[in-house]
């Protein structure tokens, strides 16, 4: 199990950073494979923005003396990562280099759920007691607006299109929901994080999310999902093997020489 940091800001920053970093990584594996070229351009813009957000958080950690941002991003092993299970899941069968058989329904369902959850957190972070977190949240929320619009459009469109699309979306959403138990969790550091007024509590955020997505779920005639208790809690460093595989790929070049300038 992962180390718990004294400083709740550090704890929260790692969760936010690792979430966006992994989400962006999964997005980058999709490059060139989206359903049409326009989507490839839009999706990769979102992926890029998200990597930018992760970078903001890793740099804040660097500023707090936790080590170089690049090293935090690349070489921390899975057991030290605090991202949610949802973002570490692969895009589908196969590796992105060889015969990827990715599932667009899953990409849309995951992106929609992740991005709406991110929005609720970012809104709350805007009034964080931590000044730099609050400032980062303001900047991030500007880009997030477009990401939300994008994924909401896809989510509703595919649910309300052909029967095949709806079936695929239903299945994909089930898979996403099953992995979202720790999405709103702050893990073992939850009380310290909330007591320090860095962000509102898990329950408050989750309730707000439910209200926020309700109108969208109404248009697709699906009940707003509830997330069960997580089997593994990524916030506490409990992960699938899929995460270590992802880390190995992301750090393949960096790890060949940690001292070199790249």
């Amino acid at each position, binding site marked *: 199990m992962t180390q718990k940091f004294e400083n709740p800001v550090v704890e929260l920053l790692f969760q936010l950073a690792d979430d966006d970093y992994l989400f962006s990584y999964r997005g980058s594996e999709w490059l*060139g494979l989206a359903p049409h070229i326009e989507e490839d351009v839009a999706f990769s813009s979102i992926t890029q923005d998200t990597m930018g957000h992760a970078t903001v958080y890793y740099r804040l950690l660097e500023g707090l003396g936790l080590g170089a941002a690049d090293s935090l991003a690349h070489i921390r092993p899975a057991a030290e990562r605090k991202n949610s299970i949802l973002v570490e899941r692969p895009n589908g069968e196969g590796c992105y280099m060889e015969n990827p058989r990715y599932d*667009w329904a899953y990409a849309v369902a995951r992106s929609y759920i992740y991005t709406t959850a991110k929005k609720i957190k970012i809104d709350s972070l805007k009034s964080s007691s931590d000044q730099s977190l609050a400032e980062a949240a303001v900047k991030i929320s500007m880009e997030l607006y477009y990401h939300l619009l994008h994924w909401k459009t896809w989510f509703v469109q595919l649910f309300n299109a052909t029967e*095949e699309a709806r079936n695929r979306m239903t299945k994909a959403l089930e898979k996403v929901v099953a992995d979202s138990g720790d999405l709103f969790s702050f893990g073992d550091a939850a009380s310290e994080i909330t007591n320090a007024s860095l962000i509102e509590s898990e329950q408050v955020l989750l309730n707000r999310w439910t209200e926020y997505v309700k109108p969208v779920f109404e248009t697709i005639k699906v009940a707003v999902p509830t997330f069960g208790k997580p089997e593994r809690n990524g916030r506490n460093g409990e992960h699938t093997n899929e995460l270590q595989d992802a880390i190995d*790929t992301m750090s393949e070049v960096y790890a060949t*020489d940690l001292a070199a300038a*790249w």
Partner: protein
Amino acid sequence: MTADVLLEKDLQAQFEERIAAGDKIEADDWMPEEYRLALIKLISMHGISEIMGALPEKEWVPKAPTLYRKLGIMAKVQDEMGHGQLLLRVAEDLIKPLGKNREDLMQDLFAGRLKFHNVFHMATKSWGDAGLIGWLVDGAAIITQTNMLNASYAPYARALQRICAEEVFHAQHGEAIILALAEGTEKQKEMVQDALNRWWEALLFFFGPPSSDTTGSTKQDITIKYKIRINTNEELRQGFLSKYIPRIQSIGLTIPDPTLRFDEETQKWIYQQPNWENFKKIQRNEGPKSQERLKLRRTSYDDTAWVREALSAQIG
């Protein structure tokens, strides 16, 4: 002679006058079939090459060694997809009168009727290759594309304006990666030299055969006749060599051609001819990665067919 033929002859003469006068042709203007077909071939190939070109670089996006480099290469590959989008729209307007659309272009690609640029059939084996592509392949692309900035077909010229502006950033991005490696550890230096050795032949292929004698065909003649481009393949290649050989050497790299020299008398670079048989193989989609990349594109296209169906069902 029928009235139709007469009219056609007048139109052709008029068109040639416009071209000679430096006029720009718009999508809805009358144009000879030969001109339209040459444009379709050129622009659809350019567009599809931008998209296929994302695949070799994409392999290194998740692996880029720092956050900064990850952001840089993501932005670059996204630009390339954007170029593809822009160019395919230009091509779509040209094929519309023939009753064809983007779906047909994709099917042409899969069937081998529409080729993608020879340089994107090569393997990218290291991070050095990813840097070298940005620096020298995009550098070469700048040379061929600026050669057409003044193309007689206005929609293409406009697209190229925007594309060339972005290509300059790509070349800088690539150069920065290469410089970091060239000034780095022994292993990093080796990585760039290996990349250069691997890519040298492909860089010479980039501009195409010097004349139709070399490989049996070249489409450069029609495009020059209609002022779509200015220079020949060989002139462009010479321009590339003049621009990049000094730069490559100045960062301590060795060009893998001991016979390479500048001939003062003809003011031309003398270089070892690449094996044009390899070029012909690539033309037949038999290059090192031709089939793999086509398969990747085809599989992902098939796997997302349901999405495009769902979207058109909704619009319709």
